[in-house]
């Protein structure tokens, strides 16, 4: 059979046949079975070209009867129905020849009548088959509704999932942030507590000294403490065993690179137990900076130094040597390879390192905590 695709109006749940009053459902089986109808519709969705149920060669679409047909409907029609349908068009041509004279005038109304009678006949033949509200069309509507609800539910669930993820992502930093902040604060507070306790003990010792020891003892203790603190601060001249590193370069070398490697070298020396460090005779203290000037030389403690740079460090000589050669960063190799400068290093016996003066250490902005 042939069917005009333009007449083919397929929408899930909407049965155009219902509007025309034609057999919408696929036969008696589907009339009371919306679920099966849904199943059928779905199958059609997936396999629209294969008409598994249609096998009725007698099926015929009356071009005048604008009934949208889905292949397969024809096959499902009950015999009595088909009889009614066949009878209807038969009635029309039967009526027409009776009035030859009025054929031209009557043809239209009669065709119109036949047009109306056919669906009416079909409708009439259809009615007994309909089992109340449980027609295929309604069933399909229910299925549609259920599927829509399901999709809405899925959508809502997906949205909630998304919200959860987003909320968690934005919540996470909040609580986690506070926790890490608190941990850092606790860390710092521990240190503060430690230093205050050390200070208290120190002051207590001093008090004990004054209250309990003889004057000579007291003075001796004071002098000893003074020397210790001054040495530690870098305010005394010192000597000992250690290492000597020399860095020399020409104008082609980037002094900025040299500067950053020197910072790392000093860091490495300290990590390896250097107790006193100097560059070209300038004592390196806690707050001593290394600055690059004019891209050609460095300035340490506001003193301009030119290459070659001699770095001396006193400490455990072996440890220092290992630290700068085999240490974590192999700093002397770095200086050689990365900056292109010439770098030599050796251990040395009697290294002398100058004292820094008290003026080199600025404390005018510091308020001693009391």
């Amino acid at each position, binding site marked *: 059979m042939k069917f005009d695709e333009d007449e083919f109006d397929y929408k899930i749940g909407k049965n155009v046949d219902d509007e025309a009053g034609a057999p919408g459902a696929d036969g008696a089986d589907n009339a009371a079975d919306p679920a099966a109808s849904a199943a059928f519709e779905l199958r059609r969705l997936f396999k629209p070209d294969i008409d*598994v149920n249609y096998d009725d060669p007698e099926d015929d679409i009356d071009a005048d009867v604008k009934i949208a047909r889905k292949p397969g409907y024809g096959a499902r029609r009950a015999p009595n129905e088909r009889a009614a349908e066949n009878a209807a068009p038969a009635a029309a041509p039967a009526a027409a020849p009776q009035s030859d004279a009025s054929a031209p005038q009557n043809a239209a109304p009669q065709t119109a009548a036949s047009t109306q009678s056919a669906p009416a006949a079909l409708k009439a033949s259809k009615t007994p088959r309909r089992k109340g509200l449980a027609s295929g069309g309604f069933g399909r509507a229910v299925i549609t509704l259920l599927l829509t609800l399901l999709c809405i539910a899925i959508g809502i669930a997906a949205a909630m999932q998304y919200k959860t993820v987003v909320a968690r992502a934005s919540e996470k930093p909040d609580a986690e942030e506070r926790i890490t902040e608190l941990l850092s604060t606790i860390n710092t507070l521990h*240190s503060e507590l430690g230093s205050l306790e050390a200070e208290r003990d120190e002051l207590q010792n001093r008090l004990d000294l004054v209250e309990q020891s003889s004057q000579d003892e007291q003075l001796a203790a004071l002098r000893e403490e003074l020397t210790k603190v001054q040495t530690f601060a870098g*305010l005394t001249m010192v000597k000992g065993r250690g290492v000597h590193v020399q860095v020399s370069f020409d104008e082609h070398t980037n002094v900025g690179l040299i500067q950053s490697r020197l910072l790392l070298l000093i860091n490495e020396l300290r990590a390896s137990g250097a107790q006193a460090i100097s560059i070209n005779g300038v004592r390196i203290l806690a707050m001593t900076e290394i600055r690059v000037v004019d891209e050609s030389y460095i300035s340490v403690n506001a003193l301009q130094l030119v290459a070659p740079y001699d770095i001396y460090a006193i400490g455990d000589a072996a440890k220092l040597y290992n630290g700068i050669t085999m240490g974590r960063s192999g700093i002397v190799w770095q200086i050689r390879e990365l900056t292109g400068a010439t770098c030599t290093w050796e251990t040395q016996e009697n290294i002398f390192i100058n004292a820094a003066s008290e003026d080199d250490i600025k404390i005018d902005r*510091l308020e001693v905590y009391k």
Partner: protein
Amino acid sequence: MAGEGEKLGQNSKQNSRQNSKLVRGLYMVLLMVLFVAIGTLITGKIAANSRERKAKAQEEQKLIDQYTAEAEELNARIAEVKNEISGIDTRYRQVLGRLKETDREFYNLYDMYSRSLETDRVLAGLTTVSGSGIVIRLDDSGLVQSLVHDSYLTEILNVLKTAGAQAISINGERIVPTSEVLCLGPSIRVNGVRLFAPYRIAAVGEPDTLLKAYQESRIYSTIVAQNLLYDVQKYDSLTIGAYTGDPGKMITKLF
């Protein structure tokens, strides 16, 4: 013939009708199972999610409460020690006052050494100090691999020193002449002490100068680019703790 064909057609129609009935039934069951499964999955996931979230939030709140309590306890102890220090100091002054009256000569000598010691202790970083300055906070704890390097820290410290910082501490560890800043995996080592991110670098100096120098430095842009900067703030009053190590141990090789 036509009748036969019709009959045959009808039979095959009936068979196909029965078959399609069965198939339709199967499809229906399949759909039902599918929908039930989906429904179960969705409901289960929603329930699990909300449970999970609640549990996690509870846990986090517990930790926050615990740490807040710990921090408060530490603050209380700090206040306690400060009181003790003040008490000791008062007694000390009393004793000295008495000494000043009873033995002037000795007192002068003692006082001279005493004052020198006090000043030198400040110069050495052995006292707690305060002043205006800035605090730089770095955080690499959120990243898979710690990215704070030795060079980053040495550069930052150098920038601060160049800008006139007079006292610096990292997570409470005071920078003294022998201070190293090493990176050890997810932590750093300063003064032989292991510190963990986030890192708090406090520097006392002129706040605007320090801030400007830091923000204009090369290392700053690197840090920002690598998302390591947490923040940097100026402070009118900042407290930097004393070095807690034993200075005597750090001068054993010096003669």
